[in-house]
């Protein structure tokens, strides 16, 4: 295979784990996943717990093998030594050789990459300083705190000056300063023309530093695109707090087909989906002499989009996902309660 500029190309990979007694149980961790990364972008892999992020990243680094599908990293197959020499990987909650000091550990990592001695020593010093663990460099990793280990983990992922950096939840276990440092390092990598793939379930991180993101749930790709594109799909709600009687509320609900059971001290809280024109709705409230306590436009965010997929991790409801997909982009939170025909077979759980 020839070296290619495309850092990562995933074509229809699937992975099913066998677990349980006699390996009889099957867990579908990744299902027909495909996407391609562009050189120089920061790509976020988003998904709820158990979505298949870690499994995907382990497949990309050759630690586990997909049942199906193909992966090309700079044109090389994922489990090839050649591909891995261009990659830096930070596993989820990295585990270390506890008896080594941070310096010894980085030294070992550099040796695996066959770095020349001078370059190696310079690189280690540089990374130790950059990640603010220089003072602890000669202490055994056994005595490192969680955040310090995470920093050591990022240091080892960068030791070979990789072109593709794969990070599994890089910001977990870090204090605010650490998070800022990591974000800065990641965005600096982009400036150097490196490509970064990282998984997270913290949306603000992805929103802040990623160029593009993919959302996966139950091993399947749900959405992929630029952050702007994903945000445009994000549900933009307006939260309105009112003082009203129960009768007034049910009238509103009937008219606007909205649902709320959020009672506040003096009234109700309504989450107005974006498809209802706010002006008209408020006019209605005023006409009905309902007191408006507050109007809060919810910040446009990936949060809602994400939550919608999160619900669909319910393993028992294979159809739940589709129901969800239909209902979520409209933001209409259909519920048996407000469906007079009773025909709605939506099994969605409400987002409270």
């Amino acid at each position, binding site marked *: 295979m020839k070296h290619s500029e495309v850092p990562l190309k995933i074509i229809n990979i699937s992975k099913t784990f066998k677990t349980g007694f006699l390996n009889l149980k099957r867990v579908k961790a990744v299902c027909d996943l495909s996407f391609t990364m562009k050189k120089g972008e920061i790509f976020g892999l988003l998904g709820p717990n158990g979505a298949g992020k870690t499994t995907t990243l382990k497949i990309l680094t050759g630690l586990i093998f997909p049942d199906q599908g193909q992966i090309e990293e700079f044109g090389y197959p994922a489990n090839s030594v050649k591909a*891995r020499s261009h990659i830096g*990987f930070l*596993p989820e909650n*990295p585990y270390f050789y506890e*008896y080594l000091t941070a310096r010894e550990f980085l030294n*070992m990592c550099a*040796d695996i*990459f066959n770095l020349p001695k001078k370059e190696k020593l310079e690189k280690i010093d540089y990374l130790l300083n950059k990640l603010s663990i220089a003072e602890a460099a000669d202490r055994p990793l056994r005595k490192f705190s969680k955040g310090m280990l995470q920093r050591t983990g990022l240091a*080892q992922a960068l030791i070979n000056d990789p072109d593709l950096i794969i990070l599994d939840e890089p910001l977990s276990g870090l204090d605010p300063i650490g998070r800022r440092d990591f974000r800065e390092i990641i965005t600096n990598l982009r400036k150097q023309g490196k490509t970064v793939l990282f998984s997270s379930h913290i949306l603000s991180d992805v929103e802040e530093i990623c160029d593009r993101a993919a959302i996966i749930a139950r091993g399947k790709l749900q959405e992929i695109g630029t952050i702007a594109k994903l945000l445009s799909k994000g549900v933009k709600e307006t939260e309105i707090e009112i003082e009203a009687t129960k009768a007034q509320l049910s009238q509103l609900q009937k008219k606007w087909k909205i649902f709320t059971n959020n009672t506040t001290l003096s009234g109700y809280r309504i989450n107005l989906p974006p498809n209802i024109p706010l002006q008209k709705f408020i006019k209605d409230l005023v006409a009905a002499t309902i007191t408006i306590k507050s109007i809060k436009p919810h910040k446009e965010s990936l949060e809602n989009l994400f939550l919608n997929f999160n619900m669909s991790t319910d393993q028992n409801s294979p159809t739940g996902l589709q129901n969800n997909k239909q209902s979520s982009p409209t933001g209409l939170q259909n519920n048996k309660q407000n469906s007079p025909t009773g025909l709605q077979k939506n099994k969605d759980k409400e987002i409270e």
Partner: protein
Amino acid sequence: MGAVLAIAINTFRETIRNKILYTIILFVLIVLISGNYLANISMHNEDRIIMDIGLGMLSLFGVFLTVFTGINIIFKEIDKKTIYLVLSKPLNRTGFILGKLFGLLLAVYTVVVIMFAILMAQSLLMQIAYPVNLVKGFILILFEILIVLSIAIFFSSFTTPFITGMLTVGIIMVGRLLPDLHQIIRVKYVPGFWRETALSLTQIFPNLYIFVPNGHDFNGQYLSLTSDFITWNYISWTFLYTVFYSSIILVLASTILKNRDLV
């Protein structure tokens, strides 16, 4: 090759930094020295036997140490997930196994060489006339350690330390008693299919007896680690056997690891 060396150095460090190791070494040293001393005063001039006991103990200790450190060797890396940091780098799994093998071998060899030096010093003090035979016997011990370690690595690449330990010790026992086992089969079975089957089944076990011969041969000649029949020829032959057997086992181990998901 640099990567294999890096793993080897790391494994060596890990073993050498294990505090339990020193407790064991101290204990064995006490037993070795006092045992030799007792043998010395009780059995008078049987130098050869005294040295046999010394080497025999060293061989037992070497094998024990190998099993003790080897049962965890691959399993722990997967269990503790440290292997993720290594195998996501440009090192293939065969290289990883070789690195683990060399590192641990070096650590165990270091320990037994030190112990052998003590034994040699003793033999020189006692003015025993067989120091060369002692060295030859010791070389055989080193070979046995390599085979035992390969077996431990093999099991450790797919099962727990406990099972690895049980199976490895079982194989060592069968391997050391292989000539006796053959004898039993010859007596028990009439020539024919079953005898052949039983005999060929024993072929999968390593013949560890060749490294620690004890007892008598068919001519009534006393066989021991320090016997004259252990020529350099004999040693070359056992060396080939060691390399052959270990290679097969290691190829199997690496095939297993190569096809395994590291989860």
